[in-house]
């Protein structure tokens, strides 16, 4: 096996995405346009960013049950504080990223179960969001709205953004030196420590980066929706975990794929809109996401078995 050969297993996120996209185009050819593509995918941008945040946590063998509540809290801050007092707003967002980093250090310093700590954090983030915003509302900062409705030449904003997110995450996690070290945490943290790294610092960095992606998710969400509420992104927790796994990531061992994860997030949202084009009741929208998840993972099992046989 040569170094550059790509196994079918790694191509699976791309294949499943392409199948759903072609099916969508076949059913509704007007989706195959500048406007159509933007409508299909623009609400996926915040989900893709949250998915990268989740991917960073899963990469170090943890899981983050607070993503949805965190992104909702960011959205609440962006649509109120950031509009009224920009400096205070940015300070609050920076504080949230630092809190995430501190959480990562804390979890690993005391060897706490991340699933329970992030569960507790989801109550804290959710409570803070309710304090800031007891009822849905708020507005988007002008510049953010302008940024999210920009019309780049050639490809619509949603597609450009998805490409940018995938490329940036790929460079950061798969290509950069520090990304390789962080992936090593999930593979074998002890050997990373032996190589002279301070583990709590690395975990803090991983969680901090996840916090940055969570903040970006909240920012883009407000730019698209132009308003927010305390539970606006509550579905993101489960969607982000599903996206990471759909993209070829695994819970143990630091095996993740940022490009796959972005494709996974896009695939999940396509699964929902495909039903509308098939004139199937929107009742099944969530179910379709579950079905796609099961089908793709079943296909992955087939590929893995064949690889094992070869």
């Amino acid at each position, binding site marked *: 096996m040569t170094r550059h050969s790509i196994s079918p297993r790694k191509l699976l996120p791309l294949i499943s995405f392409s199948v759903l996209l072609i099916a969508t185009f076949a059913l509704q050819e007007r989706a195959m346009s500048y406007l159509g593509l933007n409508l299909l995918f623009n609400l996926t941008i915040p989900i893709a960013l949250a998915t990268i945040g989740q991917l960073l946590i899963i990469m170090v063998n943890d899981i983050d049950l607070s993503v949805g509540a965190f992104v909702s809290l960011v959205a609440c801050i962006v649509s109120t504080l950031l509009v009224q007092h920009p400096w205070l707003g940015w300070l609050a967002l920076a504080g949230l990223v630092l809190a995430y980093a501190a959480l990562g250090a804390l979890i690993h310093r005391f060897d706490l179960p991340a*699933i329970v700590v992030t569960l507790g*954090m*989801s109550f*804290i983030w959710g409570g803070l969001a*309710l304090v800031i915003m007891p009822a849905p509302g708020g507005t988007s900062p002008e510049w953010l709205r302008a940024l999210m409705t920009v019309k780049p030449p050639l490809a619509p904003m949603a597609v450009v953004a998805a490409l940018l997110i995938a490329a940036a995450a790929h460079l950061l996690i798969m290509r950069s030196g520090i990304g390789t070290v962080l992936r090593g945490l999930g593979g074998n943290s002890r050997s990373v420590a032996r190589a002279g790294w301070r583990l709590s610092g690395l975990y803090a960095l991983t969680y901090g980066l996840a916090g940055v992606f969570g903040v970006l998710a909240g920012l883009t969400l407000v730019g698209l929706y132009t308003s927010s509420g305390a539970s606006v992104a509550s579905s993101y927790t489960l969607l982000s975990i599903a996206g990471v*796994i759909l993209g070829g990531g695994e819970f143990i061992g630091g095996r993740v794929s940022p490009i796959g994860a972005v494709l996974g997030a896009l695939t999940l949202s396509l699964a929902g809109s495909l039903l509308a084009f098939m004139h199937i009741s929107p009742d099944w929208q969530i179910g379709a996401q*579950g079905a796609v998840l099961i089908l793709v993972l079943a296909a992955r*099992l087939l590929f893995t078995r064949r690889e094992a046989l070869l």
Partner: protein
Amino acid sequence: MQSLISRPWLWAWLAAIAVFALSIALSGAAQAGGLLYAALSFGAFAAIVGIGQMLVITLGPGNIDLSIPAVMTLAGTLALKAMDGAPGTALLGLGVALLVGLGAGAANFALIRLLRLPPIIATLAASLLYQSLAIWSNRGLRIKPPAALADFATGRTLGVPNVALIGVLLALVVWWLLERGLWGRWLLATGQNPRAARLAGVPVERVRASAYLSVALLAGLAGYLLASFSGGAALNMGQQYLLLSIAVVVIGGTSIAGGFSNVPGVWGAALFMFLVVSMLNAYGFDAGARMMLTGVIIIAIVVAANARRRRT
């Protein structure tokens, strides 16, 4: 005395009693009965699904059921639909709810076993399907439970809420199975070291299957009771029980790493969670502050439990 202090469930009960005392200090002793009654009623639902979640978590790292809320909603919805408010159909509804639970548990485990999915993903993907099924069958309809069933679910026997009696009975059965039954020994052995358990002749896969079936059955039952208790099935009726079911297991002193169950702790934690919220309510905290303090308490308990584990 030493053995009493080292019981991990003690702390959840002490915390529940302390919070109860604090609430009574504010509202006066006259409110004590009412508060206790409400805690037993609402705590019962958290305890029933918490016991199920505990069985699965006992199986070891990575085992968890994220489909509890969806199964509750689906079971409650389909049971009410089957009964259609007609008198004398309570047992039919119970049967439907338990069948839903059984089916969901079997489907969950099939995904875990046949597709080799991590339980988090298997139960998450399946829960999306159950949720859609519930939305589809619940569409715009609001069926009331049969009057007799609603009276039973909200009623009391000897001053104790009926739902709490059911919850306690279930807890006793599971506790007995775990402490005295062969199945319980198998479950704990599987959670402590699945490889060693398999070599010792424990039918590990059958034990895992039974745990995933049990949690879904309990979720189905809880959905049926909750729908009858609250006068109808709502699509978001299970929502809060995802985080709550995990929280009561952890606060109750069950090891998140698996292999050690703690049934009395689940009930103590379920009462504690309700009492904390009602106490903060009584002290005038709003919804946001109540949630934040709940989160702080969960994290504090995990840190404390961890410190205790490290000392020993």
